[in-house]
């Protein structure tokens, strides 16, 4: 069955099913008919035997028998397959009409009520034996009634022959029908295949319509559509990514070109050239860093960022980073405060980077003279690190998009240093995601807070 087509499989199965059903039906019909004929025979024999008993019960002696014989013959004559034998209780045959039978001895004097059957000269017979009692003589006579049932046997033989012929024909017809049914039943599958075949990168937006698809195929189509959606999403992201790179690199590249060309248009003093080279160096560094960051994000998108799993105390990380950033904070009169503690399993370098990005981000937007608060909380189910800074409230519609690469709340404004390409929060998010954590931002009443949530060190199994 392995290499058969679905249509062939279904036709065959259909055929086998029909054969099985017909066989069961045929056998049952056969059995029922046999039973029915037997009942009919028994009924006939019962009736006739009763009448015979009735007729014979009026005889007192063997001589009286002659008187009732016409009556008996009339009874038997109405049924030409029927024969009767009357025996005296010593076994002598008093009457045998229409034929003398060689009835097996055991049935001759069988007093049991019940039908017996035997075969002779290609004929099938059924018989019944009864004892006739007169008021003064019990078991005076024995009456045997015999019914020729050869016709029934012939009937069954014919029936069986036709049954087999019918079965073969039905099997062939059902296989053919099955093929037709399967083919038309599988038409939606071919349609789905057709749509799937015509898919290309351009048509990833297309979906296979669910309405005309039968129930059984809906799950397949839904899965297929979901796959298309994932492909489309990845494709769109890839396209955006390429577009972003092109766009973001275009600015520094254009600076480099313009600046260099302008400097070269006329002879200048040494300082001018030096100045140009320094400026170029700045732009080049910016581009280099951007490429590094983009590569990091590309790797994380492809699940290639695999953090180490060592136990990291977040308060130590935060304290270290604050030691670094406090120089910058001092300049702006900003306070940096860490409270709480909690440890997670993760990659020290990556977590450093993620939290560092949040801190430098907070420093960029905090009003001078205020305090940036880093709070670490540890519960049984999660370790959270919150970086809170007072600053301009971010509108709700921007909150989710903050983590998108190159996203800026105000597109026209390049906030902070020129090296801030808008990748910091995207990198932070991918690091948090690589650590099975979550990150989100809340902003209200002039307080912006970035929340990072990690599974606690114990859940992943401490080292």
């Amino acid at each position: 069955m392995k290499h058969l087509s679905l249509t062939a499989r279904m036709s065959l199965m259909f055929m086998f099913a029909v054969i099985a059903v017909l066989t069961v039906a045929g056998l049952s019909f056969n059995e029922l008919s046999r039973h029915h004929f037997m009942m009919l025979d028994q009924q006939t024999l019962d009736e006739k035997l009763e009448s015979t008993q009735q007729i014979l019960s009026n005889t007192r002696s063997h001589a009286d028998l002659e008187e009732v014989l016409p009556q008996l013959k009339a009874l038997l004559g109405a049924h030409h397959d029927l024969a009767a034998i009357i025996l005296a209780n010593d076994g002598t045959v008093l009457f045998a009409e229409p034929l003398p039978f060689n009835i097996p001895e055991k049935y001759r004097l069988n007093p049991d009520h019940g039908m017996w059957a035997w075969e002779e000269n290609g004929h099938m017979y059924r018989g019944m034996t009864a004892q006739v009692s007169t008021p003064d003589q019990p078991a005076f006579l024995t009456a045997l009634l015999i019914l020729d049932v050869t016709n029934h046997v012939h009937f069954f033989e014919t029936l069986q022959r036709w049954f087999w012929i019918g079965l073969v024909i039905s099997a062939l017809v059902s296989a053919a029908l099955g093929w037709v049914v399967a083919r038309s039943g599988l038409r939606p599958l071919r349609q789905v295949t057709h749509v799937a075949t015509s898919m290309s990168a351009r048509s990833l937006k297309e979906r296979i319509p669910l309405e005309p698809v039968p129930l059984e195929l809906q799950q397949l189509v839904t899965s297929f559509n979901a796959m298309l959606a994932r492909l489309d999403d990845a494709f769109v992201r890839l396209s955006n990514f390429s577009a972003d790179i092109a766009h973001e690199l275009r600015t520094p590249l254009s600076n480099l070109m313009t600046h260099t060309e302008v400097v070269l248009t006329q002879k200048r003093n040494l300082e001018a050239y030096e100045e140009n080279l320094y400026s170029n160096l700045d732009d080049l560094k910016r581009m280099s860093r951007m490429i590094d960051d983009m590569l990091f994000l590309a790797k994380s998108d492809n699940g290639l960022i695999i953090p180490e799993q060592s136990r990291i105390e977040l308060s130590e990380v935060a304290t270290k980073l604050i030691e670094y950033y406090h120089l910058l904070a001092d300049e702006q009169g900003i306070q940096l405060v860490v409270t709480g503690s909690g440890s997670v399993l993760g990659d020290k370098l990556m977590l450093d980077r993620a939290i560092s990005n949040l801190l430098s981000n907070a420093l960029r937007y905090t009003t001078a003279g205020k305090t940036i608060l880093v709070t670490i909380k540890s519960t049984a189910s999660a370790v959270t690190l919150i970086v809170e800074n007072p600053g301009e409230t971010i509108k709700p519609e921007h909150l989710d998009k903050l983590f998108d690469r190159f996203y800026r709340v105000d597109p026209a404004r390049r906030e902070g240093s020129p090296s801030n390409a808008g990748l910091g929060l995207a990198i932070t998010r991918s690091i948090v995601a690589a650590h099975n954590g979550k990150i989100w931002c809340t902003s209200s009443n002039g307080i912006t807070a970035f929340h990072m949530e990690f599974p606690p060190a114990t859940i992943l199994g401490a080292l």
Partner: protein
Amino acid sequence: MKLLVAEDEPKTGTYLQQGLTEAGFNVDRVMTGTDALQHALSEAYDLLILDVMMPGLDGWEVLRMIRAAGKDVPVLFLTARDGVEDRVKGLELGADDYLVKPFAFSELLARVRTLLRRGNSSPTQTTMKIADLEVDLLKRRAVRSGKRIDLTAKEFSLLELLLRRRGEVLPKSLIASQVWDMNFDSDTNVIEVAIRRLRAKIDDDFELKLIHTARGMGYMLDAPESE
């Protein structure tokens, strides 16, 4: 100090040779892995700078054969590919350091000097002196012109780093990594602030400036006499 640069990209190779020569090294340059192997086996170099992707033999193959020949000259790899497995492979084969292109030349120079210093480590000094600045590394105290200078722990570490590598331009990334254990590019001007503060304490009150800015590249501690 004699270096070998194996780099198949002509522009990169030329600039590396120029830069390293101007930094005071004696530099040979080859463009294929086969040449690199031949040079490395026949001449005594203090350091090899190998590009991973080269025609003929690649950098890893060259390194493998050099090590097989029993040479333990330090090797610094340059590569355009930044895969963890690449890095691991290089280090497993016995590379001493690894730089991903694009890199800053100042960064390369700093690493080259670190590698060259390794091995012939100078006896641990407890005091260092440059011009009229004296630093006691054990007591963690700095004195300039007989006047005690009050430094924070990080400021002292920064000064110590600059002193230990006097005359070298130290890139900001190296300073951040050595002093603050920040092993990634943090794209802020923290180092500038730190240097400015250190300058305020070390240099501002004195005629002779010790801390110098190499614009766009990093910082250096130096005094005219020590050259």
